[in-house]
């Protein structure tokens, strides 16, 4: 039985003298995993490595127990929607998917049936017989997604899959990822639009300059970084009084007034101590209307990790 994980064991990839990724160790479990990093950070290289489009200079990669050097086995269980726009010259949307399915060994009738199903799933039925070259960016994104899911793979890899999609299609696409991941499959996607992935990802892998800087659930990644001060927005009427009480706490490193009089922006190095302090303040009779962590999204975490902290 194959290992249901995607494993990178000390993998490095260089393009000549340019670093792609360096000494990557990863164990990606099933579910939705987002690779997050700025342009050129190595997200696409990681995806290309796990699909065999590029080969590592060092290290070993296994996708559910299959080496990317065995495309005849790997591509049976893997679908990859690449960032590359082009398909076979002159192909229609239908041809693009159907020809791929024929290579999977499906009969003509079965391939046609699956093609229409995949096209319908991404809402491109009306444009199926038009040439891919004439598609808009969003349509190309969708036809690539359709091609990657047409053979019902166990591992779905998607390079910036939400780029160029309108809000409605975006919501439908995210629902599709969730549905896929719910069945114990892998959905690995990349994005640099950070807010959109922390909403639906089970795991996040933060990558910068070809190195993994953090991995795991967004919350647990956040908790791993003990030294990182957490920022909270305190909604309260007596802001200056609360501020003076909090300044007495040693774990508080910064307190600012929130814009538009929303309350206070508090930076703490110890969440538990902060929670205890707030409890104490509330018990002293000062009203605190709400406590909102403002940096638990990927943006803040990412900024902290990549930008060297505050």
């Amino acid at each position, binding site marked *: 039985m194959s290992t249901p994980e995607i494993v990178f064991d000390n993998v490095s990839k260089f393009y000549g003298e340019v670093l792609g990724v360096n000494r990557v160790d990863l164990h990606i479990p099933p579910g939705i995993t987002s690779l997050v990093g700025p342009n050129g950070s190595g997200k696409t290289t990681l995806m290309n490595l796990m699909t065999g489009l*590029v080969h590592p200079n060092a290290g070993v990669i296994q996708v559910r127990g299959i080496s990317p050097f065995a*495309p*005849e086995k790997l*591509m049976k269980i893997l679908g990859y929607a690449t960032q590359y726009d082009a398909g*076979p010259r002159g192909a229609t949307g239908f041809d693009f998917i159907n020809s791929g399915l*024929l*290579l999977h*060994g499906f009969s003509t009738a079965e391939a046609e049936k699956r093609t229409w199903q995949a096209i319908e799933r991404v809402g491109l039925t009306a444009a199926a017989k038009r040439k891919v070259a004439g598609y808009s960016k969003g349509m190309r994104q969708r036809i690539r997604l359709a091609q990657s899911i047409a053979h019902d793979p166990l591992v779905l890899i998607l390079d910036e899959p939400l780029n160029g999609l309108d809000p409605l299609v975006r919501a439908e696409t995210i629902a599709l990822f969730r549905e896929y991941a719910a069945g114990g499959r892998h959905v690995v996607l990349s994005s640099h639009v950070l807010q959109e992935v922390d909403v639906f990802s089970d795991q996040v892998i933060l990558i910068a300059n070809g190195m993994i800087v953090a991995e795991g659930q967004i919350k647990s990644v956040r908790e791993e970084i003990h030294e990182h001060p957490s920022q909270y927005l305190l909604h309260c009427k007596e802001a200056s009084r609360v501020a003076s009480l909090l300044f007495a706490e040693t774990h508080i490193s910064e307190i600012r007034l929130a814009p538009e009089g929303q309350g206070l922006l508090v930076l703490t190095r110890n969440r538990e101590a902060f929670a205890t302090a707030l409890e104490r303040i509330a018990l002293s009779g000062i009203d605190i209307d709400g406590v909102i962590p403002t940096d638990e999204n990927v943006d803040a975490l990412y900024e902290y990790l990549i930008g060297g902290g505050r």
Partner: protein
Amino acid sequence: MTPLSQIWVIAKMELGRVFFSRRSFWVYLLALFPTVIFLGHAIDAQLKVKRWGGERGVKAELLDQAQSGMTDEQVLALVGKPVTDQTRKRRARRDDDPADKQPEVRRYMMYFDGKRRVDLRFEDGKLVSRNARVLMNFEDDRRVYAGMFQYFYLRLGIFFGCLGIFINLFRGEMLDRSLHFWFLAPVKREVLLLGKYLAGLIAAAVIFGGGAMLSFLAMVLPHDSVEVQTFWQTIGTEHAFWYAAAAALGCVGYGSVFLASGLLLRNPIIPAIVILVWESINGFLPDVMQKLSVLHYLQSLCPVPVPLPTEMPAVLKMLLAPAAPTAVWISVAGLLTLTGLVLFAAMQAARRLEINYGAE
């Protein structure tokens, strides 16, 4: 799905693109060029027969009686009015040497007896030379065809045609940024390579094998029907077969070489020049090295050897003269072995190939 059926599926998917690729449309021009030349030759001959025959045509026996020394008037009286008749008088010059015995008047008459064009030259009224040439000479045309086939069709037509077709199978997809489509299919790279090679081979063999057959027919058919019939009943079919086979095997050999080049090198001009030079200097090399040439085996398959003109410069003669031919079965086996080795190297390159469009 077996690898063989995958190869066939890939080949079928590629065929349309190979046959109708805008990038290699000029390949058809190369393949059809000899046909156009021989058709042109036939049409030109037919027009001349029409123009020179009829009232102005003369009897062959009468023409043969015109001998050196006869006067122009005698010839006119014997044979009749020529198709063309031109007279040129020598201009007197001040510095003319009285001892110089250049003729004062030259007259040129051209006759046509239905098959031969006969040119008669008279100097000062006397017949001094007689040149007869059959307008459609089957033997000559077959030799011309053999020369065209070996020096143009094999060395240049099929060579550059295969360059255009096979180098685009991988390199073209890299430029179009569409190669990843194939790499994401559940097929071994070796199978993918063979599928694409098969597509290129079918297209090249149809285009150039068809071109060879068309030009062969364009060369044979306009000749006298009796000659043609005799030719088909004796050696015609065999010759046609070997020309088509040599063209197809040329596609097999050059196709594999250029497919491998497309995988190993970015610039197709470099392998083209290297291989062209290699094929050209092959005649200078020792026997063992000559066996590493596609052209060597192809020339060994050609049914009609091409005699080189004696006045040709020695260097050119060495470049054009084929090496001692190899037996047919060795030629075919040698070519297939060479192709197998090249394809094996191409498979290794395909396994290592990465998608890195930015570097293209």
